[in-house]
């Protein structure tokens, strides 16, 4: 609930735990993750591979499949708790209220069906349109995502399209029924850099035009910062820092966020600072089965002390808004 407007957030996740069931008991992958996205706003979830961001997205879609499972926590979508919703209820929400775009546009479309049909399917499924109406609306949807010659393109098969075009088709499918939330899981990672910018810009404009909020998931902090109002940084299944995009980028508080920002190559950085090597964060994200105790970042952290090994850092408010989870902050 936003006290200023009295409006509920479009997505509000609290204390979300996701585990992987196994022979030796469950392994916790996502640990007490919580954030909320106001209507029509773009929210970024950032972290390295394996930090749990993609399965958080799948949980929002209700697409977690055994052995993955949500062990506790709430997911409020548009004011209703979908954690524990039945498959039939979720099915009505999926595509209509919340949609998803995936990382790999080359394989995300059915190779045996013309792309127009794959968009049209949305109108048939959710709005009871006839195939004829739906086909016509699919052409409009293609035009909407700026696919040239949409009448002709609608009859094309996925293999006839470039990666960028396919991702446009995916966006058209996801936004066909004007959902309240679009979950975009690394939507540009598989694309050329020049195409990336186009796709991000397209997503932002179309969503803004129809009031769709975005949950943008990426390992690319720069990309997320350009697009989102608010950003949460995830590490090893936990959110370590959260704040507004500008503030987080300008004044990161958590050593991990600082590391991420330091690892982004910048044009002109060499001219300013002499011959500087691109910074990296030493080590790798630990496997979920061997997440360290205390602060999970401590083995890779230069500031780690005894307390980091033993105690989980609590969320503290950061100056400038948001939260940070670090024993050495402030």
């Amino acid at each position: 609930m936003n006290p200023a407007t009295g409006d509920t957030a479009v997505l509000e996740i609290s204390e979300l735990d996701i585990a992987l069931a196994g022979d030796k008991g469950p392994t916790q992958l996502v640990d007490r993750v919580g954030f909320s996205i106001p209507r029509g706003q773009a929210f970024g979830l950032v972290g390295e591979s394996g930090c749990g961001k993609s399965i958080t997205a799948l949980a929002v879609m209700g697409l977690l499949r055994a052995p993955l499972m949500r062990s506790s926590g709430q997911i409020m979508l548009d004011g209703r708790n979908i954690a524990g919703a039945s498959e039939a209820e979720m099915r009505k929400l999926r595509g209509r209220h919340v949609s998803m775009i995936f990382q790999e546009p080359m394989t995300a479309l059915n190779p045996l069906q013309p792309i127009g049909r794959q968009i049209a399917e949305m109108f048939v499924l959710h709005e009871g349109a006839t195939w004829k109406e739906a086909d016509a609306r699919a052409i409009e949807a293609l035009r909407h995502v700026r696919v040239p010659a949409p009448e002709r393109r609608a009859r094309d098969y996925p293999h006839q399209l470039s990666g960028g075009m396919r991702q446009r088709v995916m966006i058209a499918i996801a936004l066909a029924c004007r959902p309240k939330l679009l979950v975009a899981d690394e939507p540009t990672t598989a694309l050329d850099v020049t195409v990336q910018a186009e796709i991000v810009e397209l997503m932002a404009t179309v969503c803004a035009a129809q009031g769709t909020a975005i949950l943008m998931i990426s390992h690319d902090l720069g990309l997320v910062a350009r697009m989102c109002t608010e950003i949460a940084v995830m590490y090893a299944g936990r959110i370590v820092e959260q704040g507004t995009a500008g503030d987080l980028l300008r004044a990161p508080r958590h050593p991990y966020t600082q590391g991420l920002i330091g690892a982004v190559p910048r044009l002109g950085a060499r001219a300013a600072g002499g011959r500087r090597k691109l910074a990296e964060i030493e080590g790798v994200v630990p496997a979920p089965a061997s997440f360290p105790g205390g602060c999970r970042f401590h083995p890779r952290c230069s500031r780690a002390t005894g307390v980091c090994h033993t105690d989980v850092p609590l969320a503290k408010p950061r100056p400038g808004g948001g939260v940070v989870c670090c024993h050495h902050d402030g």
Partner: protein
Amino acid sequence: MLRLILKRVVNMVPTIAGVALVVFVLFSVIPGSFISSLMDDGRGGMDPAVVERMRRELGLDDPVAVRIVRYLGQLVVGDLGTSFRTREPVTRLIGQRLGASLELTFAAMGFAMLVGIPLGFYAALRPGSLIDTAAMIAAVSGLSLPKFWLGLMLMYLFAEYLHWLPSFGYGGWEHLILPALALGVSPMALLARTTRASVLEVINADFVRTARSKGMSETRVVTWHVARNALLLVLTTVGLQFGALMGQAVVVEKLFSWPGLGGLLVDSVVQRDIPAVQGGILVIVLFFLVINMLVDIAYVVIDPRIRAG
């Protein structure tokens, strides 16, 4: 499309010529001939003059090379030669038996597809379930049972013991069931396994996840997006099994006294009736080639990626 079909038909010619050549050479190399097989029949020593005359009449005196060229020449105009045994044209002999063979082959393949494919689907959608395990055990057994043994068991159970069906012979549909089952169980088992594997592969594909994220029911996901993609993978197996089935039918036909090509082939091989053997084998090869051509055409119709290429 027409060009594709024409191209495939033209491509068959060298294959058929090659097969004809191999069979021909094989029968000139292996010991024994039609005439010696007559003598083995218990008629004892034949008059050398008669033997000489027969050899001349049947053209066995000529060098192999000459006979091959003569045979291929006949083949071009659709003449399969004359049977040594019955002195009838081989085309007529085959014509009398082809119908029964096709009937058996189609019935067996129909059974294999109608049972095997749904079974594989069902098993794949419930992996690890009791039905999956049972179906796959049945499928493995179906693959490993020899056809003649299975035929005998079916005969014993349904004809001898239960008296539901005739044990052999040719006639109405009731005569078709047992041989078709005996022949169809192994392709059915293979199809069940292939279908299960393909469905499991497709169901984890990214586009199936997309389909789910669109908010459609699992039934629709499976029938609309999984089925067609999975069947595409099954199609190759269908073609190969179907094509090979007519050849495999020989044993089953003999067992059930089914008046198909199998009986003709076995008798002709024993008596070294070379033209009849060659004709029979060529028809079986041709059937294999035609079925696989049809499968290739089906691919072009179903898969847009091939259509373009």
